[in-house]
């Protein structure tokens, strides 16, 4: 398989963005159509890649491409995907057309920028998102990681609410803080690799094996981890998120929280864990503590938000707590669960933000919960999707998010009984804030002024249906995800030298796969 599939995946949206950007300013509709077309082509290519992906392959990375880029620093353009990257790329490729479709009119009223600009930025971002998950060279990853900031920054800052510039700057500065710390650690890693192997390298495969002095590992780990913790965002590095989510357009928020922030958790599982196993083990208790704090902190804050978008942001923070928790308990259930959760959260975030976005757009941009009541009676379809999104967010069994959340909690429980038990309590608060939101906005007597808002239109329904269907269908058939994730997680577990705890009693009925050892 010599065809450079992954590069193609990046190039197509990039070309699309250039085409869109070159269209005349007045042809807004054409720009949208072209953008949608390119994103759909990318989705098609992604599906083609996914179909060719072999879950049982002995090779960790598939579709590998490697070309020297800056040999002076041991940097190469190396891409390749394992199961984890594959599902996240698929998530990105799925959400982009949905966001384009849902955001069809989002940029029309934007104060700051042109219509085609918005869609061109989305496509640039898609290329970068695919790149960041596909990179197998740490430097290349870093480049994508940082460059992603630029389109996102413009998407928030040019096409957002009244406070968008503050939010965009806060987002950027926060991210840059993380990015620069990571840069320092990255360079440190390179220098160490040069000392250990003779020639410095950024190749992920080569870096996984090398022995790093434990004290140094701890420092380097921190550099990477803080960058990822800011991106993810983990408590207490989260305060950029509510502002960004509140000010950005719903589509931007979907891509930002649904996909971009996953780079943080992806980075933790791929880079922090595998390159710095000893440090990961050392810091695991602290990280777990932060994650658990984040679960409750986000949930409690979500409970008293007056603004829908801020509520979603805090709820995401809570969810990211779960994801991080799953990663750092070093069990295959926890880690697979985290990856599933990443996908599930992407879908549920998309559903929430887009549905809320449709609602907000019908009320001239107010996202205050108190401005809504009884929407269900005038827009039942909208309310229905909102409910599905809410249920996905509270991880109702049968939804994909349940699979993720349960596995994460199970993984945590296996390793640290009390951590798992305490974190499980979080699901009650989640239910409370999600249903409180639904109750206040969708039910009750109709708020005056909402009479004429009208239900969802065909385009909007078309955008939401795939998200809802995927959430539910994958909830009952998660195998397409878990089949590709599990081998990758096993690799991670092997790299860090962790094994699942054995059950107290080997039951006769239990699966005995690998149990005889």
């Amino acid at each position, binding site marked *: 398989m010599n065809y450079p599939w992954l590069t193609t995946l990046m190039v197509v949206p990039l070309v699309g963005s250039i085409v869109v950007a070159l269209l005349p300013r007045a042809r807004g509709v054409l720009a949208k159509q072209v953008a949608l077309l390119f994103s759909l082509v990318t989705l098609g290519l992604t599906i083609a890649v996914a179909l060719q992906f072999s879950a049982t392959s002995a090779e960790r990375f598939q579709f590998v491409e490697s070309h020297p*880029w800056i040999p002076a620093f041991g940097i190469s353009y190396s891409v390749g995907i394992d199961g984890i990257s594959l599902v996240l790329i698929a998530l990105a490729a799925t959400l982009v057309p949905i966001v384009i479709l849902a955001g069809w009119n989002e940029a029309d009223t934007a104060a700051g920028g042109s219509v085609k600009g918005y869609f061109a930025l989305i496509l640039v971002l898609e290329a970068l998102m695919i790149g960041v998950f596909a990179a197998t060279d740490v430097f290349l990853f870093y480049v994508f990681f940082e460059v992603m900031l*630029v389109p996102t920054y413009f998407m928030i800052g040019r096409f957002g609410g009244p406070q968008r510039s503050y939010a965009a700057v806060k987002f950027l500065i926060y991210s840059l803080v993380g990015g620069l710390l990571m840069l320092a650690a990255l360079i*440190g890693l390179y220098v160490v690799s040069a000392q250990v192997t003779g020639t410095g390298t950024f190749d992920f495969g080569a870096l996984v094996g090398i022995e790093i002095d434990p004290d140094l590992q701890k420092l380097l780990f921190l550099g990477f981890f803080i960058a990822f913790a800011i991106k993810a965002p983990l408590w207490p590095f989260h305060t950029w998120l509510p502002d960004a989510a509140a000010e950005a357009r719903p589509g931007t928020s979907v891509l930002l929280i649904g996909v971009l922030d996953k780079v943080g958790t992806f980075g933790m599982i791929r880079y922090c864990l595998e390159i710095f196993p000893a440090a990961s083990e050392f810091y695991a208790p602290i990280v777990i503590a932060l994650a658990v704090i984040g679960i409750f902190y986000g949930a409690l804050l979500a409970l008293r938000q007056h603004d829908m978008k801020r509520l979603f942001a805090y709820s995401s923070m809570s969810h990211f707590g779960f994801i991080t928790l799953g990663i750092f308990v070093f069990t295959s259930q926890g880690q697979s669960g985290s990856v599933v959760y990443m996908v599930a959260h992407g879908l549920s975030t998309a559903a929430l933000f887009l549905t809320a976005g449709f609602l907000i757009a019908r009320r001239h941009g107010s996202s205050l919960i108190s401005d809504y009541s009884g929407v269900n009676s005038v827009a039942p379809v909208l309310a229905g999707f909102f409910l599905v999104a809410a249920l996905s967010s509270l991880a109702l069994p049968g939804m994909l998010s349940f699979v993720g959340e349960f596995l994460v909690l199970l993984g945590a429980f296996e390793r640290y009984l009390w951590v798992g038990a305490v974190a499980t309590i979080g699901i009650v608060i989640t239910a409370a804030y999600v249903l409180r939101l639904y109750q206040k906005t969708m039910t009750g007597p109709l708020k005056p002024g909402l009479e004429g808002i009208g239900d969802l239109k065909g385009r909007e329904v078309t955008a939401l249906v795939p998200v809802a269907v995927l959430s539910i269908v994958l909830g009952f058939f998660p195998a397409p995800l878990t089949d590709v994730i599990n081998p990758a997680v096993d690799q991670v577990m092997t790299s860090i030298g962790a094994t699942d705890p054995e059950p107290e009693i080997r039951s006769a009925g239990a699966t005995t796969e690998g149990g005889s050892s």
Partner: protein
Amino acid sequence: MTEFTPPEINYYAIAPILIMFGAAIVSVLVEAFVPRRGRRPTQLVLVIGSIVAALAVTIDLRGTRLVTGAGAVAVDGPTLLLWAALLVISLLGALLMAERTIDPVGDSFAPRASALPGSDDEQQFARRGYLQTEVWPFLLFAITGMLVFVAANDLLIMFVALEVMSLPLYLLAGMARRRRLLSQEAALKYFILGAFSSAFFLYGAALLYGYSGSVGFVAISDALTAKPSEGTLVALGVALVIVGLLFKVSAVPFHQWTPDVYQGAPTSVTALMAATVKIAAFGALLRVLYVAVGGLRWDWTPMLWIIAALTMLVGSIVAISQTDVKRMLAYSSVAQAGFILIGVIAATPEGLASSLFYLIAYGFTTIGTFAVVSLVRNASGEATSMAAWAGLGRKSPLTAAVFSLFLLSLAGIPLTSGFVGKFAVFTAAIASGGTWLVIIGVVASIIAAFFYVRLIVLMYFAKPTEDTASVAIPSAFTTIALTTAAVLTIALGVFPQWLLDVLEQAGVFIR
């Protein structure tokens, strides 16, 4: 009476210097003898031709590695590389200075520098459409000085080169057509402080001469090995020489001229100066530190360490509260000097290579930055007040995009040359044990990002107001300069390997 043996001089090796010097003299003659009408075209042909010729020779010289003129001039890899960079950037600078379409009145220089601002005299000159063409000999002399400066292998030549480079620049700084008072003030400050700092340099040179019995770098280095015990004299000498050079690179606390001069000087001159003087001065500083007093490395490292940290932090922090674009960029150039110093301190071949990379990247980005500044105008000339930049992204998307590119490069965002430069110096520093300096550098980068981003915010996220400036449509001169800078900023960010290869081939300073 010993017999006088003239030193052997490899004329071809120093041909770029000679070409520029010759061109400078011819240029003076042109001023004297060519009729007014024909001066500008003649000068332009002369300047561009000589620079291109010098550049061609420089390229032809690649691989040369020799010391000539009785040890006074070293032509080695770094020298040639710096020459090439200086010449290319000077060429871009010359193009900017040649621009005359963006200002309806003419070019950006006072028609008669000595005239009283606003006087009848001056107005008459303006009415007649007289143009200042003295700037061209000045430019050529300054370039000559820079070329010598980076090749100087003894303190005397270095001092002379310093002055040959600086004196024309002092004058150029004072020649702005608009805002004459500011321009003159900038010239005065630049001159007084420049002279002051060269006095320090010179006295330091005297002390080093007293210590080693020679002004040659190699001799000084040998003396340090021969008699390492004599401390104070050499320490004083090194300190004063370094102070003189740190002034030119605008390191804290010798930086205070920078914002005033950058702001007051005509923007095209600022562009030239910000890019080339920094390169030349760092070239000289590197040679002094690595060749002459490399043996004292452990002595000057702590001092430079502190200076670097201060430079990065003060430059970045003060830039935050600036309200004038040029002034902000001046503080940014202070901060950038600190980053380059990180690479300098590494004192390894990687340190040298990374500093050079950073310098070159910085040079192109900077000249591009100021080129954009020169285009953003309102009725009273250049609009350097930040308020006038609000909403520029809406009014002139392309200009704003290019400017953002430069800002992102200065901020060190990947896929720009600034990032690779930062990456290179940080790598060199960490490899030689400068981790904490890198961490300070990271902190400073974060602070610096703040003000770069602020400008982008202003351009894109603010609504245009009545005060928003408009972008002048430049002639081919500025367009070429701007495009080259932008292309190189991206090219060096995306495909830096060729320059890294060149740097590797260039090797280290010859001794």
